[in-house]
């Protein structure tokens, strides 16, 4: 049913339709409205046969989920930022044990400095934890991906993170079509665990594996995760058939068929980018967009296929690897190994700095003209940087820097 609602609420209602049996969460901005919604649905009796557990930390949240999932219950939790890192040990544990837990990440920056606003640092920090990572581009997709996630997780016996931009998506208020129970039941069969803790059939889960077998266990995990690259397109097609909507998939292309310059991005910024692309196309630019939905496992082949005919690729990064540069760019570079084209990275929107159409437009124009450096920070306040570095220099008795603080042009080109 189409309703005008806060996206977090739509997500909560959609998750409830997936018939989770154990929901446990610890509050952290900006995911709180999702779990509050679920608490309300459980208490009001609208979500039955579901234990909602208030836990004492994020580490406890995922640990409770691990126990519940191992005991055969469909399990859900949500977190962000500091919370995701606090449960990091458990994140690896869940994937290592092959437990099909679904977890929402309300993407938020990681401190220090403490920052409650949106960027992708949190999920990026755990990109190699063995979880499937999906990124929602819109409010509708944020809701839909959770249905898809349970199906993917249970089919592969692998946990799934559904990433949605904190505040930008979690707290936006717009029209979302929340499906019916019947539709979800038709798409999502009952949870049939690969292995389960059952007194009737005892088994040991979580043994200690030594050097003689550990590599093989990890190889099998890798192999399983690669299967996701086939399973997701297949299930997305089923989703389309069942719900009549295009949600999920590995990636989406927008006006890339003849594009010389292609932008690559994850998450809600893709909506804003599409508006800019349409404006530029009107003016004769040859520009397109690849929006990656399945970030882990990384769809190298699909990305290569989508980008290989372009002359230039600009990756919009919502996170930063300090001392290195982009995070997604590295994967894109790998995908495009051997293809002759120019790859540029723009770090944008860190710590919730709004990504405006005007700034994107400026970036895209410069990308088209190939006047953009390999690494750019969108909307960087150069004056502030120069002033700070100048002060630092001044404070030292024997300056480490030359008299004129030389901030590398490549790092500080301002939009």
């Amino acid at each position: 049913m189409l309703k005008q609602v806060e996206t977090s609420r739509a997500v909560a209602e959609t998750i409830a339709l997936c018939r989770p049996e154990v929901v446990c969460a610890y509050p952290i901005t900006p995911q709180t409205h999702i779990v509050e919604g679920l608490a309300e649905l459980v208490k009001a009796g609208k979500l039955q046969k579901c234990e909602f557990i208030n836990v004492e930390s994020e580490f406890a949240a995922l640990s409770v989920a691990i126990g519940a999932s191992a005991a055969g219950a469909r399990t859900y939790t949500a977190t962000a930022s500091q919370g995701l890192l606090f449960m990091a040990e458990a994140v690896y544990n869940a994937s290592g044990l092959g437990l099909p837990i679904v977890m929402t990440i309300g993407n938020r920056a990681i401190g220090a400095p403490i920052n409650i606003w949106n960027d992708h640092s949190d999920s990026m920090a755990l990109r190699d934890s063995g979880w499937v990572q999906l990124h929602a581009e819109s409010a509708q997709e944020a809701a839909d991906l959770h249905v898809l996630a349970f199906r993917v997780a249970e089919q592969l016996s692998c946990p799934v993170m559904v990433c949605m931009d904190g505040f930008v998506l979690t707290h936006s208020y717009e029209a979302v079509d929340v499906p019916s129970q019947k539709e979800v039941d038709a798409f999502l069969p009952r949870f049939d665990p690969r292995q389960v803790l059952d007194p009737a059939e005892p088994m040991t889960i979580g043994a200690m594996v030594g050097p003689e077998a550990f590599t093989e266990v990890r190889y099998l995990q890798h192999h399983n995760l690669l299967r996701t690259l086939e399973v997701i397109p297949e299930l997305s097609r089923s989703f389309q058939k069942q719900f009549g909507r295009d949600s999920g998939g590995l990636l989406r292309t927008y006006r890339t068929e003849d594009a010389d310059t292609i932008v690559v991005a994850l998450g809600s910024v893709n909506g804003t980018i599409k508006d800019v692309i349409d404006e530029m196309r009107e003016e004769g630019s040859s520009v397109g967009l690849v929006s990656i939905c399945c970030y882990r496992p990384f769809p190298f082949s699909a990305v290569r296929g989508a980008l290989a005919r372009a002359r230039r690729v600009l990756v919009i990064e919502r996170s930063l690897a300090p001392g290195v540069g982009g995070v997604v760019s590295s994967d894109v570079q790998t995908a495009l190994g051997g293809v002759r084209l120019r790859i540029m990275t723009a770090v944008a929107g860190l710590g919730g700095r709004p990504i405006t159409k005007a700034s994107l437009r400026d970036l895209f124009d410069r990308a088209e003209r190939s006047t953009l450096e390999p690494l750019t920070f969108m909307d960087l306040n150069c004056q502030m940087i120069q002033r700070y570095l100048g002060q630092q220099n001044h404070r030292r008795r024997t300056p480490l820097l030359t008299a004129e603080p030389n901030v590398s042009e490549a790092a500080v080109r301002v939009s």
Partner: protein
Amino acid sequence: MPAQFVKFYQTGTFTAGNRLLPSEEASVQSDEVRPNSLTSGHRACRGCGEALGARYALDAAIRAAKGKVIISNATGCLEVFSTPYPESSWRVSWMHSLFGNAAAVATGIAAAYKVKGRSDVRVVAQGGDGGTTDIGLGCLSGMFERNDDVLYICYDNEGYMNTGVQRSSATPAAARTATTPALGKEPGHEFGHGKSVPLIAMAHRIPYVATASVADLRDLEYKVETAMGIHGARYIHIHVPCPLGWGSEPSDTIRIARLAVETGLFPLFEAQFGTVTARTQIRRLTPVDDYLKLQKRFAHLFQPNADPQRIEAIQEIANRNIQEFGLLG
């Protein structure tokens, strides 16, 4: 009439005299079809108090729950020596996740079975003192606070033994460990540290808290059976000597455990909803020296130039326990 030599058997012990008790009062271990939940083949050291305590505790739990028990085990000696892939010495459903989350994992398992309407399936969480009193305390407290239907058993060998005998918050004063070496003015673990998780458990006012020891295994079984008869959060803290970490003879494990009880250093008691309801009286009060002498981790206290006040201070701890718990009637 010719003289007939008559033997009297004691009941309530692990001697063959168990056969004089009705079966439900006899030791679980005396039953020829005992569960053997932790079966042979595990890699524990000779004289391991934890292996002994775990087998008795879990078999008692399993008998009480008619076999329907699922175990959540923290990282530690017990987990490591019992599940060297591809072998496992567990004959029951068992899961190991992480070091600090055994209680939380148990909460999850209990929740799953509650949703499935299976109140007959019971959950036991267990870990060593490291995984319980230190890194696992947050999750443990959460489980207590929510009164989740979990029995948590702590096997307290007073240190992080699996990783090489480092100090934990359960390590007693003056004990030598790898991180509290017997050097300097205050050799061994400093005084004034430590925490009592049984008292912390009682502060949560959960339905049942008990301490137990491998010195009295029937009492241990009884306490586990009592706990299994209750739904809600329960905690049992078992004192288990570690010959390797304590520097004691493997054959002295039970003897040392008994001395800990008889000196008053390890009080045996039960509590319900935050109030002590029963305690085991000390039968033969013993000075702490007799206990400490048997363990190399306290050897520095008996050096010629050792400060006698330190042993006195340990005696003070014992005296205080005796008084606070009323161990001498």
